[in-house]
C-alpha cells in the first residue's frame, strides 16, 4: 500500500511538464548531428519560441514547441547556456526552405510504397468516371500559368472547354475557377470549390463563369452557393475588386452566407486557447472564461455547421453546391473537406482520409508553409499564419467523438497529422502549393509522410479497433453541448493521459480477445464439420 501510494504520488504532483536534460545530452542535440539527429530535428522544426533566463550561474532555457509542448532545460554555466540558446535559435529560424530538415532527412525505414505517388489525380478520376461521364480531366494548368495555386490537373464539366476555363479564371480571384471537389454517388450531386468572383463595385459579370457553373446542374435543378463570409463581408469585398454571384446573373443558384473566421482571428484564438490551457491556476471561473474568450469552440461550431449545411444541401435537398470564400484556400477547403467526410464513407478510412488531405488541402493549394509556420507560441505577429488545418482536424475529432465506430483511424492519427503539418521530417507539408512543391523538387529530394505512415507497422498504431464500415451519411450534432475541447491536443502536455491510454488498451484487448475467440470457435466448428462428414461417409457404405 505504502509503496503504491508513493509511486502514484509522483504522478499526482507532476503538474508541469518539466524536462531536465543534462548538458551532455544537449551537446549531443546541438553539436553531434549524427547521433542526435532526431532530437535536433525536433528542436529545430518544432521550436516556436525560445526564452532564456538566468539565476546565478544556472541558466534555464525554455523551449516552446509547435506541438504546444513546453520544455525547460536547466543548464549550469551562463556562457554555455547562452551558446546553446543561440544555436537552437539559429537552427530554428532558417529562412530558406531547402535548408530545412526534410531535405537532410534520410528514412531509416524501407519505403514500401512511395507516398508521392499514392494519390494521383488520374487515379481519382478513374474512380469518378466509373460513376459518371459528365466530367473530364483538364490539363490546362499544367504549367501553373492559369492558376498558380491549383494543381496541374483539375476536374471540370465535360461540356466546358479549356478556352472557357481560361476566361473563367480571369474572373475568379487567383485564377481559382470552379473545380470538382466531390461527387455524391447517391444522387449525382456535386460539390465544387473556387475563389470569389471579381465582380467589383460595378457588378462585372462573366458569361463563361455562369456557363461553367450552370453546366454542373442537371435540367430543372437548382444549386447552392455557400459563401463562407457574412453577407456584409462579401459586400465589402466588392470595394477591393472581389464580390459574390449576383442572383440576377445566376438565377438557378441560391446564395447562402455563413461567417467563418480566418487568418489572424483564428491565430489569436489559438494563442488564447493555448495560453488558457497552460494556465496552472486552480480557478474554475478563470478557466471557463478564458476558454470562452478564446472563441476556439465557436470557430469549431461555425465550421462544422457550415459543412453540415453543405452536406445537407447535397444529400437532403438534392442540390449541387459551390463553396467559396474570398481566396478559396482556407475556410472553403474546411467546408468542402468536412462535408466530404460527412457524406462519403470512403473518406473515413485511413487511405480515404489521406487522399482527402492530399486532394482537398495539398493539391487544392492550402498554403501550409504560411499557415503552419510558428504555431501558438509565436511572439511576432505572423501575417499569414492561421490554424486553418488544425481547426479542420479538430472538427474531424468532434465527429470522431460522435461516431466512434465510423472512422477507421483513431485520434492519434489526427494528432500526428497536426504535428507534421507544423513540423516534420517529411516533405509533404512543405511549400504553399503544388507549383512551389515542384520547384522545390520535393518528390526527388524529400520523403513523403504517406510513405512512412502507410507502412503496415506504423499504420497499425492509428487503427480504431471499434471501426465498422458505416456506409451511411453521418450527421454530427453541432449543439454546444455536443462539442468539446480537444484535450488530446490542447491539454496533452499539461496532464498525463495514462488512464485514458489504459482505457484505450483495454478496448483493444476486449476486441482482440473477441476476435481470437471467434477464430477459435470457427476453427473448431470446421473440425467438427469435418469429423461429422467423415462419420457420415463412414456410416454410408
Amino acid at each position, binding site marked *: 500500500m505504502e509503496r503504491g*501510494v508513493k509511486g*502514484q504520488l509522483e504522478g499526482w504532483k507532476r503538474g508541469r511538464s518539466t524536462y531536465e536534460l543534462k548538458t551532455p545530452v544537449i551537446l549531443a542535440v546541438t553539436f553531434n548531428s549524427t547521433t542526435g539527429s532526431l532530437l535536433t530535428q525536433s528542436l529545430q522544426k518544432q521550436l516556436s519560441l525560445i526564452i532564456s533566463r538566468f539565476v546565478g550561474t544556472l541558466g534555464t532555457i525554455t523551449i516552446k514547441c509547435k506541438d504546444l509542448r513546453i520544455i525547460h532545460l536547466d543548464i549550469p554555466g551562463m556562457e554555455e547556456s547562452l551558446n546553446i540558446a543561440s544555436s537552437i535559435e539559429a537552427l530554428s529560424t532558417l529562412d530558406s526552405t531547402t535548408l530545412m530538415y526534410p531535405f537532410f532527412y534520410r528514412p531509416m525505414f524501407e519505403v514500401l510504397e512511395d507516398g508521392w505517388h499514392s494519390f494521383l489525380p488520374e487515379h481519382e478520376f478513374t474512380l469518378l468516371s466509373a460513376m459518371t461521364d459528365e466530367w473530364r480531366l483538364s490539363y490546362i494548368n499544367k504549367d501553373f500559368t492559369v492558376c498558380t495555386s491549383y494543381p496541374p490537373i483539375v476536374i471540370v464539366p465535360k461540356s466546358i472547354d479549356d478556352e472557357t476555363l481560361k476566361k473563367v479564371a480571369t474572373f475568379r480571384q487567383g485564377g481559382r475557377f470552379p473545380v470538382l471537389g466531390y461527387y455524391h454517388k447517391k444522387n449525382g450531386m456535386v460539390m465544387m470549390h473556387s475563389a470569389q468572383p471579381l465582380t467589383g463595385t460595378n457588378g462585372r459579370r462573366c458569361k463563361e463563369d455562369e456557363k461553367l457553373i450552370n453546366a454542373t446542374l442537371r435540367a430543372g*435543378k437548382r444549386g447552392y452557393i455557400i459563401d463562407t463570409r*457574412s453577407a456584409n463581408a462579401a459586400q465589402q469585398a466588392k470595394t477591393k475588386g472581389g464580390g459574390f454571384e449576383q442572383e440576377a446573373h445566376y438565377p438557378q443558384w441560391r*446564395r*447562402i452566407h455563413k461567417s467563418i473566421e480566418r487568418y489572424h482571428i483564428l491565430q489569436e484564438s489559438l494563442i488564447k486557447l493555448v495560453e488558457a490551457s497552460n494556465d496552472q491556476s*486552480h480557478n*474554475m471561473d478563470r*478557466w471557463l472564461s478564458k*476558454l*470562452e474568450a478564446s*472563441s476556439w*469552440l*465557436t470557430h*469549431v*461550431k461555425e465550421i462544422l*455547421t*457550415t459543412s*453540415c449545411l453543405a452536406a*445537407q*444541401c447535397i444529400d437532403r435537398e438534392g442540390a449541387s453546391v459551390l463553396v467559396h470564400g474570398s481566396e478559396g484556400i482556407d475556410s472553403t477547403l474546411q467546408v468542402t473537406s468536412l462535408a466530404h467526410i460527412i457524406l462519403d464513407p470512403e473518406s473515413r478510412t485511413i487511405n480515404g482520409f489521406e487522399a482527402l488531405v492530399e486532394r482537398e488541402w495539398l493539391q487544392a493549394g492550402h498554403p501550409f508553409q504560411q499557415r503552419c509556420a510558428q504555431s501558438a507560441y509565436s511572439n511576432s505577429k505572423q501575417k499569414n499564419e492561421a490554424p486553418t488545418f488544425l481547426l479542420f482536424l479538430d472538427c474531424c475529432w468532434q465527429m470522431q467523438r*460522435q*461516431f*466512434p465506430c*465510423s472512422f477507421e483511424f483513431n485520434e492519434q492519427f489526427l494528432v500526428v497529422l497536426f504535428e507534421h503539418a507544423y513540423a516534420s521530417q517529411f516533405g509533404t507539408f512543405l511549400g504553399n502549393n503544388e507549383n512551389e512543391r515542384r520547384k522545390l523538387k520535393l518528390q526527388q529530394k524529400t520523403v513523403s509522410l504517406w510513405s512512412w505512415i502507410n507502412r503496415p507497422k506504423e499504420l497499425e498504431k492509428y487503427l480504431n479497433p*471499434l471501426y465498422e464500415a458505416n456506409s*451511411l*451519411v*453521418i*450527421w*454530427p*450534432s453541432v*449543439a*454546444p*453541448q*455536443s*462539442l468539446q*475541447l480537444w484535450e488530446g491536443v490542447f*491539454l496533452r502536455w499539461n496532464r*498525463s493521459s495514462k*488512464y485514458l491510454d*489504459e482505457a484505450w488498451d*483495454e478496448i483493444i484487448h*476486449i*476486441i482482440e*480477445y*473477441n476476435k481470437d*475467440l471467434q*477464430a*477459435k470457435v*470457427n*476453427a*473448431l466448428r*470446421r*473440425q*467438427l464439420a469435418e*469429423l461429422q*462428414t467423415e*462419420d457420415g461417409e*463412414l456410416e454410408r457404405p
Partner: protein
Amino acid sequence: MQRERWQLQHQEHPSIDGIKSDTGTAPARGQEHRLPSGISNCTVGTLGFFREGMEYIRTPKIENVRLLDRVSSKKASAGSLYLTATHLIFVEHLSESRKETWILHSQICAVEKQATTATGCPLLIRCKNFQVIQFIISQERDCHDIYISLIRLSRPVKYEELYCFSFNPKQEKNERGRGWNLTDLKAEYNRMGVPNSLWQVSHVNRDYGVCDTYPAELYVPKSASTPVIVGSSKFRSRGRFPVLCYFCQDNNGAICRSSQPLSGFSARCLEDEQMLQAIRMSNPGSDFLYVVDTRPKLNAMANRAAGKGYENEDNYSNIKFHFIGIENIHVMRNSLQKLLDVCELRSPAMSVFLWGLESSGWLKHIKAIMDAGIFIAKAVAEEAASVLVHCSDGWDRTAQVCSIAGLLLDPFYRTLKGFMVLIEKDWVSFGHKFNHRYSHLDGDPREVSPVIDQFFDCVWQLMEQFPCAFEFNERFLVHIHHHVYSCQFGNFICNNNKESKELRIQEKTNSLWPHLTKNQVDYKNPLYRKDHSQTQGVLRPHTAPSNFSRFWRNMYNRFEKGMHPRQSVTEFLMAVKEETQQLEEELEVLEEKLARLDQSHLRDRREAIKLPHNLESTTDQCLANTPQDYMDNGKPFTSCSSSQADENSETTILIHNMKHSDTDLSGNSDQESGVADLSCRSPSGGDFLSSEDSSKNLSEYPEEIAFAVA
C-alpha cells in the same frame, strides 16, 4: 444487439427514459399496457390510497394533444393524453409503434400553463430528471383541468401518497425483505474492519434519543464513554456528534463526520474536546487530527453569532483545522437553475453556452466538492491521518465530501455493490434529508437543493478521468439519480432513519438496489477488470480546472437525444463482451463435442494417427496441421474452404444484426443515415440554419424545388 437490450430495459422501467411502453412497473402491475384499455384498467385497479389520488383527476383522457419537439417548434406529434393516479401518459397517434411518453407525477417539479394561442393552450412540464415537455392542448378547459390535477398530484402532502407505497412488482414474498438486506451496513463496517481494538459499536442512539437524525447503530472510538458521547452531542447542532464514517484498515486512518460545534464566540465543551481527542487516539500512528469544515470561512464565522461555529484550534489539542469553501444549499439551488436555463436555450451560440456555463458556477461547485474529497483522501492515504468532516448540520456537504473521499480511497465503493452501500451509508443512514432536498412532499422550497445531483456529477467526472476504475457505467448513475426523485422505491423517501422506521418503509416498499442488481448487465462498465491497475488502491485525480470542466450532457440534456453521440463506445463494447461470452460458451461446447468425436474416431478409425486437436490452436495452426488428413481423405479440404466461407458470412451477419438493431432504436429512424434520425438530428439541423436571413431560405427550399420542377 445492444440496442435491443437497452429497449428491454425500458420495458422494465418505462419511466426511466420517459418513453416506451411497458408492462413491468406500470402503475397497475401486470395489466394490459395497451392504451387506452390499459389506462381504464389502471384507473380502476390502483390501490387504496390512489382512490384518493383519483379524486384529483378531473379528466382522465384528453384527445387532440400535441407534444412539441423541444428543438424545432414546428414539429409536433399528435396524440392523446392520459392522466392516471401515478403517471401522465402521452400516446402518439400517428406512428405505428404508438410511441408512449410516461411521466411520473413525482418527477414533475413545475407545471406551467402558458397563454392560449390560436393552436391551443400550451402546457409546459419540467421534471426533476431534467426532462422538459411541452404539450399543446386544443381546449383551454382541458388544459386547465390537467394543470390543476397535476399541480395537486405532483405535490403530495402525505408520505403514504408516494408512488413507492403502491408500486408492487411481481416478486416472491420474502424477496422484499431480502432486497433490503442487500445493503447491510453492519456487514459494511465489518468489511472495513470495525469493530476492532480501536473502534466499537455504540447503542447510545438506540431509540434515536441522542440524535434523531442519526442511525441507531453508530461506530465510535473505544475510548469514548457514553457521557462523553452524550456531552459532545449536546455541543453539536442537532446532536450530531462525531462518529465513524470510513476506516482505513491499512493505516488506521479514519474519516469521521459530525455537525458544527455550538461554540459561538467562546463556548467550550470538555466532552466534545475529549471526543475529538478520542478520535485522534484511535489512530495511534498519527499525532494530530484534521478537522475539515467544508463551508466557506465567512459562512462559518457568521454562524458564531447564532451560537454555532467551528472548532477553535486553541481549545482542541493537536487538531489541524481547515476550511474548504463549498457553498450552501441555496447557492447550489440557484446554480443548478442557471445551468438548466442554459441547457434549455434553443440552439445557443457557443459563446452564450460557455458563458452561461461559467456564470452558473456549477462546475466551480463541482470542483470545490471534488477538491474537498481529494484533500480528505490524501490526508488518509498519504499522511495516515484521521479526519473529522463537518459543515453546518453535517448532512449535505459532509455527505458529498465523505462519499467522494470514500470512492477515491476504497476500490470497493467503485463496484456496483459498493456504490449502493456507499449511498446507503453516507447518505441514507446519516440522515441526508431526501424528502426535503428533493421535495417529495409539498414543502418549503428553500429546503430543496441538488445535493446528491452534485455528488453524481463528481462521480461522473471521475469516471471520465478513470475510464477503467469503476465497475458501473454512466447509465447506472443516471438511473439512480432518476430514482432518487421517482419515489418508486423506498430508499430515498424519508429524511432520516427514524422516519423510515416509523413509516415501516422496509415492510411497505421495495428497495431500489435489488432491482438494479437484477439488471446489472446493463450497468456494467465494459472496461472494468478486477485486476486492472485502475481498480486497485487510491485514485489520484488531476485537479486542474480543465479536468473538471466537462458538462454532463447525458444528465442535464439527457432527453435531447439529438445532442448525444450517435454511436456509443460503451454499448458497442458491451455488445462485444456479450458476444465474447457466448463464444466462450460455444467454445466449451465445441471442445466437448470434439473431444467425444475425437475419442470415437480414435477408437474406430485412426488408432495410429492422432488428430491434431489442439483446442487452443488458432485457425492457421489447424490448417497447417490438416494436410496429413488430406492425404487420407479428399473431403476435409473442401469442407475447410466451405467453413471458411461460413466464417465470413457469420461475421457479416453479426455486424448486420448490430446495425439493424441500431436503426431500430427509435421508430422514426432515418434509414438513410442509419445512425441519426432526422427528428433527432434537428437540433443540429436547426443549428445549421442560423437566424441569418439568407440561410432561412433553405428551410423554404423544398417548396421552391417543387416550383422549379413544375
